[in-house]
């Protein structure tokens, strides 16, 4: 019997984690208990930024990471965090297909393999005040939690504010933060409706969680077990994308039910953000080089 540890950063009830737990159970069943995968949810084994290197270094055989979080390391990881490039589930799947070969190559160089990836629901704009155009965001205290969200703030003239997720709720209550860009799902998880009134469904990007496997650990399995892992992974991927769409619909309804105004962006806001997206795509391409061009070419084909 082989035992694998699977560190994951999100709480046990998050749809990604629920999917992982199901995946582990499927593997257990398909291999008749020969491979036991323990899911360590809620960052209980390793914290989010440590998970990738834990898999890379063999401290965990398998782990789940948020891809765009690793953009600092390699620009291609940030491809699904480029705002307004892929803004629907269909586009996001297309982007994933274009990214996949490049990602797989890089991960193979790092001694890992990509088992599957599932998108988060699209990112929307949460705000205390109504926002009808980018001009309304000028001077607005905007939570900058990643390089991309910082850059958006700079481009629209908002004031980027550094506040950790743990302190967000308090920061919103005291006015340290006035706007935030994240998904409906995260908004429900962190109860953003307690302090913010408006949600603009701008569908900025659909970041993906990827499940990575340490190649050495995978190679050490016998063939039937390897196949079982791959098969369960493929099923988890399909299940995860469907769950994500459902979570998107459900959580927007939850936001509404809790008194939030869930609105489509005004044409002006949409146009303004589109312009931000173009600038950021250009900047990203400059840094991502040939890989970036290749991916974009495949995506736009």
């Amino acid at each position: 019997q082989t035992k694998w540890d699977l560190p994951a950063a999100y709480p046990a009830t998050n749809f990604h984690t629920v999917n992982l737990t199901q995946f582990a159970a499927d593997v257990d069943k398909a291999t008749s208990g020969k491979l036991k995968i323990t899911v360590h949810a809620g960052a209980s084994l390793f914290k989010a930024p440590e998970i990738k290197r834990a898999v890379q270094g063999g401290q965990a055989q398998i782990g789940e990471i948020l891809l765009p979080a690793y953009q600092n390391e390699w620009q291609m990881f940030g491809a699904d965090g480029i705002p307004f490039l892929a803004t629907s589930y269909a586009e996001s799947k297309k982007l994933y297909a274009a990214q996949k070969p490049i990602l797989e190559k890089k991960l193979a160089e790092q001694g890992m393999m990509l088992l599957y990836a599932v998108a988060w629901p699209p990112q929307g704009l949460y705000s205390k005040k109504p926002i009808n155009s980018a001009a309304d965001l000028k001077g607005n205290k905007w939570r900058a939690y990643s390089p991309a969200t910082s850059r958006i703030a700079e481009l629209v003239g908002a004031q980027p504010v550094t506040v950790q997720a743990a302190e967000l709720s308090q920061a919103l209550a005291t006015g340290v933060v006035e706007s935030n860009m994240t998904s409906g799902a995260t908004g429900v998880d962190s109860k953003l409706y307690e302090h913010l009134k408006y949600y603009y469904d701008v569908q900025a990007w659909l970041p993906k969680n990827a499940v990575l496997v340490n190649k050495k650990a995978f190679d050490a399995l016998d063939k039937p077990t390897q196949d079982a892992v791959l098969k369960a992974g493929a099923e988890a991927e399909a299940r995860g994308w469907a769950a994500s769409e459902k979570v998107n619909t459900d959580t927007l309804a939850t936001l509404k039910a809790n008194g939030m105004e869930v609105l489509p962006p005004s044409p002006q806001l949409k146009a303004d953000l589109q312009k931000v997206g173009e600038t950021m795509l250009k900047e990203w391409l400059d840094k991502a080089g040939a890989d970036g061009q290749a991916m974009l070419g495949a995506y736009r084909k």
Partner: protein
Amino acid sequence: MNEILVTSLLIVALFLLLGSGVWIGLTLAGVAWIGMELFSSRPAGDAMAITIWGSASSWTLTALPLFVWMGEILFRTKLSESMFRGLAPWVNALPGRLLHTNILGSTIFAAVSGSSAATCATIGKMTIPELSKRGYPAEKVVGSLGGASTLGLLIPPSIIMIVYGVAAEVSIAKLFVGGVLPGLMLAALFSGHLMIWALLNPAKVPKADADMSLAQKLAESRHLIPVVLLIGGVIGSIYTGIATATEAAAIGVVGALILSAAQGSLNRSTFVASLLGATRLYCMIALILAGAAFLTLSMGYIGLPRHLAEFVSGLGLSPGVLLVALALFYILLGCFLDGISMIVLTMGVILPTVTAAGIDLIWFGIFVVIVVEMAQITPPVGFNLFVLQGMTRREITWIARVCAPYFGLMVLALLLLWWFPGLVTWLPSRM
């Protein structure tokens, strides 16, 4: 049966290393290492380094060294002396007199700090020397501080509530509000205990100062102005949105420096002494935190807390019995692990059971926070015990003994919350 073997082996190793005088932080790391080498197939060293680095450089902890520094600065000012002068006339009639400053100070400081170690270190720096100088018995001075400073967790802001809130997906704001009444209730229980003890042992409480008229009392209260300004400034910076709860510690350091300068006690040598003193005290705590982080990781790999939690969950108990079982489970775990680790390692398993039993998750959050508070003062691994040992140089067994009554009062608080759940749920329901 394997579980029992693993557990006993690790506990034996823990007591052997601790008892033979190995430094506490290193002992925890050593036990974690033994656990990983014997009961998991993972390479221990690399995992240890990642985890210790992660915990030592984590932004969430930055308030701790800053609050420790604030305490070291204030310790070198006349602030505590003047605070006691201002308070003394008002508490003369109260049985226990100035002993209540530990409770009052911790309760107020808990509204600034989210950790009990920081509360213990900062308040202790001000009250321990002053109360000892005035002749209050050491056991009551240290015990009441150890007990009351755990309120740092229950009175918002609170790191542990954020951890629980994220795991249980309940509103952190509601948890914060839910902790207010139980926190005040615990403070009242602690004060009540001191009063009863003082009435039973009148000889052990130092004599009251001469009686004063109301006007005189009010005049003496002017000595409270600096401390009120300082604490008010720090709390104010959080609630006006100038600083987050973590950043408020920096406001505290600056405030303490200004106060120290205004009183004329700030000079090169006191500044350097406070800085080096704070660095050492923080370093002492950091080594233990590092060992504890590695022990948590090791426990995560071995799965011991998880299996115990699964066992309790699988018993199919009624809500009341389940809570008793969980309280015992967490008290036992709390002897060996720190609070945040307990929550992180077990919540995934415990929460579905608690939800299925129909227990309110906000109420359960407060229940868990109080149990974690108890863990801060139970030996052999209790962070408040360690901070107090660092400050008083007493044996940890003595400190654990003088803190024991407050452990009992927290058990009583759990019972009261069970009988009167509204103490927790009433305020959040009005939000």
